């Protein structure tokens, strides 16, 4: 949950065409000065060091789904402030600000679309909305995305990007882990494929629920993945963490993701997996 802190102010809110073209930007990883237009063409991946800039949910939809097949659902679900939570800000104010900043109604966007002509239920999280944190709204929308997959007997794809459960909804946020995982048990029983895509960062409550439960788990390169926050772990063990700790590469080495997939290969890979999971034409058990 501590990735909250890093949640940048002022993320993309304007029209795509308004992004100033011809500007140069500095790679967050290697420091290389890159032409923004070139970066954009490269799906926001640094041409020099392959660093994957964090992108918006809409970029993933464009990247993954066939053109003109996307239909969004459940956009009208919004937070109810069940705890009447207030820290430095009132929670409803926080929600309102996040909504204004991102044009999102919460940290996940769900719907249906097609990938390579196959219908899929898709959920994409967006870090720009309160650190991609999961409260009741995210949990409910993920639950409905799972149910859509169940009802229509179609595969499920979730692209995760989250610092974990949303503190401002307390125990109700924690229970979203149980809620989504319980529904995934139904999906598993029906042998409907679930592909989980982990992007930077996917941690804590989201990592310890649906993000870890994919039949196939794909990570983007160099994403921060894990259960506990690196700062908490460093405090516990009283020393600095080894380089590369809790990265996608670390997860691959220890056997907790199936593969690391570069952004430009993501669509092809998912398409191929869905093709395999559709079987050899004999009826499924």
């Amino acid at each position, binding site marked *: 949950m501590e990735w909250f802190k890093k949640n940048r102010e002022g993320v993309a809110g304007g029209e795509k065409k308004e992004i100033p073209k011809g500007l140069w930007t500095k790679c967050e990883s290697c420091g290389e000065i890159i032409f923004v237009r070139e970066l954009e063409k490269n799906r926001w991946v640094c041409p020099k060091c392959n660093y994957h800039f964090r992108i918006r949910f809409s970029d993933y939809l464009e990247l993954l789904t066939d053109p003109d097949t996307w239909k969004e659902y459940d956009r009208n679900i919004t937070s109810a402030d069940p705890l009447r939570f207030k820290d430095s800000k009132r929670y409803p104010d926080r929600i309102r600000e996040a909504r204004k900043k991102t044009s999102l109604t919460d940290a996940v966007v769900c719907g249906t679309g097609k990938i390579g002509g196959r219908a899929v239920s898709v959920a994409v999280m967006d870090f720009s909305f309160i650190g991609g944190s999961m409260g009741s709204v995210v949990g409910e929308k993920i639950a409905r995305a799972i149910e859509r997959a169940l009802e229509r007997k179609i595969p499920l794809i979730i692209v995760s990007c989250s610092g974990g459960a949303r503190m401002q909804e307390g125990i109700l946020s924690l229970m979203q882990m149980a809620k989504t*995982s319980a529904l995934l048990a139904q999906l598993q029983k029906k042998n409907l494929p679930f592909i989980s895509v982990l992007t930077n960062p996917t941690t804590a409550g989201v990592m310890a629920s649906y993000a870890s439960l994919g039949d196939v788990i794909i990570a983007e390169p160099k994403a921060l993945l894990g259960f506990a926050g690196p700062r908490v772990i460093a405090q*516990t063990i009283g020393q600095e963490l080894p380089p590369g700790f809790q990265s996608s590469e670390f997860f691959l080495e220890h056997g907790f993701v199936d593969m690391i997939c570069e952004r430009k290969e993501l669509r092809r890979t998912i398409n191929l997996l869905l093709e395999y999971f559709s079987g050899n034409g004999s009826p499924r058990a």
Partner: protein
Amino acid sequence: MNGYLDFEKPIVELEKKIADIRDFATGESVELSREIAALEKKLERLQKEIYSKLTRWQRVQLARHPKRPTASDYIKAWMTDFVELHGDRGFADDHAVITGLGKLDNLKLLVVAQEKGKDTKEKLHHNFGMMHPEGYRKALRTMQLAARFGLPILVLIDTPGAFPGVGAEERGQAEAIARNLREMAVLPVPIVVVILGEGASGGALGVGIGDRILMLENAWYSVISPEGCAAILWRDSEKKEEAAEALKLASFDLLEMGIIDKILPEPLGGAHRDPKKTFETAKTEVLAAFGELSVLPPEERLLHRIEKYRSMGRYTVDPELEELPSPVAGPEANQ
């Protein structure tokens, strides 16, 4: 800590005074016994006054009281013919969780119990009740074993959190917890969960899925510890009292929100003031819960369990949001 909490000081002082007078009183003295009786009445009033309006943070302190009974005390007090089962069959035996078969009166069941330990040596042995991935896997292994033989499952929760360490991450702490959430949702036997003390976040939930969730009066259960929440949202872990209030982590909050099914009353001043009574009250409720669950057909019980978790959460539906201009693409990083 001298075995009492800061807010208990007036009570402890008065108790000491009464004890001192008793020590002096050699032989019978009407005057002394009258004085003692008066002081005892005063003590009772004082206890009621202090303990009846505990803040949420004070309850957290009671839940962490060094003398509070731990899971192994309940097992000892409740169970006969206990057979402990060890290990996850993959990596190690996690001592932060005790798993074993036992009898609660005539009911044969599996216990999964988070154990903190009491003295320093025990605490280290049990890793303060902080489980590693192999602990969650040990719990799942034994629960699936119990399910195969139709044995119901009793889960006792008391943890400051899943262990945040290098090895825990290397061995997939997140995966271990996530898998338990999914698999416990469909275990075909009755599951009763009792939150005894601390229910910290995913560390507690990772063994905490059940048909009935009971909670001791002064236990807490939350998405994050008050200190953790204070450190992040208030940027000051000393704001733990505010955080505890804001998180609404007390038993009565969770009952109101429909997260737990029942509060198990504790003796005045907390479970440690009268462990025997605590064990008895809790046992009656646990047996009652298993009794209710046993009459349901398994399919119906499972349906209820899924529906229980499916319905958790509070949100509103606002049709006006459909009109909100659709968000557009663009890198978050470049603004």
